[in-house]
């Protein structure tokens, strides 16, 4: 138990102790940061490789087919083959494109997403950097996605890219707000923005998902996070039937691979944050190592996202925006209010009040949203081009 639990923290400590004999103190600080960083980045790379495999396997199961099964046993070597193919493909920059921006955009897309892993608490004492503004750091860094997506479109100079990037940026912006506000309700209850302390606060209060506001907050957060990472059913940016591949139409080889990486890891990191904020992070039964608990919760949430992708039809862009601004945004405000009431009222009245507030709010708002959908139903021009 102790050995498995301390596999990573103990390993790092061991290296640090060995290094302490050799290196001066300032370099030790750097070494400590670099060790955590390399571990997290290696984890991110492996996660990306096998998420692509898992996604295809799961989608295959949902659609009654096998998924990748040619390269290695169960297709387990498929990601490596994909990686080799990415590297070997010719890199094409379309004529008239801004070459500098074209080279820069994939790098800028993936770097912030990798930064997200820095504040996730993977286990007890396993946060890359336990910033005291942790969750806000996560939200701020993930907000960088929208200008980056625009850069991808501007660097390609193709109609599909420009249109896809504008849509993607507007979508990411719109869903950022409910996400930020849903996280706010947790910060109120925990009284801190550090991800690690939020997990510890849930050891005291119980998992936040078990409260009415927490349940609704998690719903809002997960939906917003799905849209934020451009995943199905919100993948307007690359609606294949109308936009080819959206903002990364003109990117081939590993540049495309990097955009793919940003999408998968962004979704994964959001699941990790959802597990941290609402599902008690690494709190779990004692016979499992804390990092194992965190991984189980995160993968369970990511499975839900894959489930969405395999079963739900895609939104239309106007419905997508209405969904964010007419339902999720006001609902997230109600979640905040209900989280405040939860603190000020006793259990029974708080329960009644939040259920009335959230249930009633959801009922009214979904009615409003439905009216908007009906009003705008039928074929209409939603291209966003004049």
């Amino acid at each position, binding site marked *: 138990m102790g050995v498995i639990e301390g596999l990573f923290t103990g390993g790092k400590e061991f290296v640090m102790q060995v290094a302490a004999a050799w290196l001066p103190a300032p370099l030790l*600080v750097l070494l400590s*940061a*670099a060790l*955590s*960083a*390399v571990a*997290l980045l290696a984890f991110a790379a492996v996660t990306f490789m096998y998420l692509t495999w898992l996604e295809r396997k799961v989608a295959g199961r949902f659609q009654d087919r096998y998924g990748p099964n040619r390269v290695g046993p169960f297709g387990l070597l498929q990601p490596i083959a994909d990686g080799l193919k990415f*590297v*070997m*493909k*010719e*890199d*094409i*920059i*379309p*004529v008239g494109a801004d070459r500098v921006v074209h*080279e820069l955009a994939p*790098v800028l897309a993936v*770097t912030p997403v990798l930064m997200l892993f*820095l504040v996730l608490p993977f286990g007890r004492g396993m946060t890359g*950097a*336990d910033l*005291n503004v942790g969750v*806000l750091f996560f939200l701020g860094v993930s907000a960088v996605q929208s200008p980056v997506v625009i850069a991808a479109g501007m660097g*390609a100079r*193709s*109609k*599909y*890219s*420009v*249109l896809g990037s*504008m849509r993607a940026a*507007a979508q990411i*912006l*719109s869903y*950022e*707000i409910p996400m930020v506000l849903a996280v*706010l309700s947790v*910060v*109120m209850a925990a*009284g801190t*923005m550090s991800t690690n302390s939020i997990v510890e606060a849930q050891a005291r209060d119980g998992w936040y998902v078990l409260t009415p506001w927490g349940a609704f907050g998690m719903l809002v957060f997960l939906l917003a996070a799905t849209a934020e990472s451009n995943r199905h059913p919100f993948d307007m940016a690359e609606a294949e039937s109308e936009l*080819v591949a959206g903002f990364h139409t*003109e990117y081939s080889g*590993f*540049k495309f691979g990097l955009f793919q990486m940003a999408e998968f890891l962004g979704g994964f990191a959001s699941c990790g944050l959802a597990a941290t904020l609402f599902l008690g992070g690494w709190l779990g039964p004692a016979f499992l190592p804390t990092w194992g608990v965190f991984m189980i919760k995160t993968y369970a949430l990511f499975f839900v996202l894959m489930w969405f992708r395999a079963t739900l039809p895609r939104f239309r862009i*106007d419905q997508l*925006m*209405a969904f964010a*601004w007419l339902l999720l*945004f006001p609902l997230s*405000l109600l979640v*905040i209010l209900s989280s405040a009431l939860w*603190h*000020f009222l006793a259990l029974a009245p708080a329960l009644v009040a939040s259920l009335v507030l959230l249930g009633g709010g959801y009922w009214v708002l979904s009615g409003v949203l439905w009216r*908007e959908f009906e009003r*705008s139903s039928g074929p209409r021009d939603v291209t*966003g*081009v*004049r």
Partner: protein
Amino acid sequence: MSITDSFVAVGVYAVLALLMAITPLVLARLVAPHNPGTEKNRAYECGVVETGDPWGQLRVQFYLYALAFLVFDVEALFLYPWAVVFKDAGLAGLIEVVVFIGLLVLAWLYAVRMRALTWE
């Protein structure tokens, strides 16, 4: 890791993440073939020769979403410091914040009434 060197952790991590993103591109530059052609390097337009300037003839709608985002984003940034002290600030703090949010809900209602947040 103590709190005082948090920026070291962030900085080191950012540099390494950047390196990790650049490495495969450099590798691809070394390995991948490179023989451009006029047809191949055209922007993709379903196989036909592209027409017109791809630069958007976009509608003002996109701007309105960004505008609404900025307003409510600033709102959220003012709420976060309050959320941290929420339990100590008590009912008085809550009322102050409810007034704050209430004004912005007015802004939201106005935007919805103006149909600025739905695709026209």
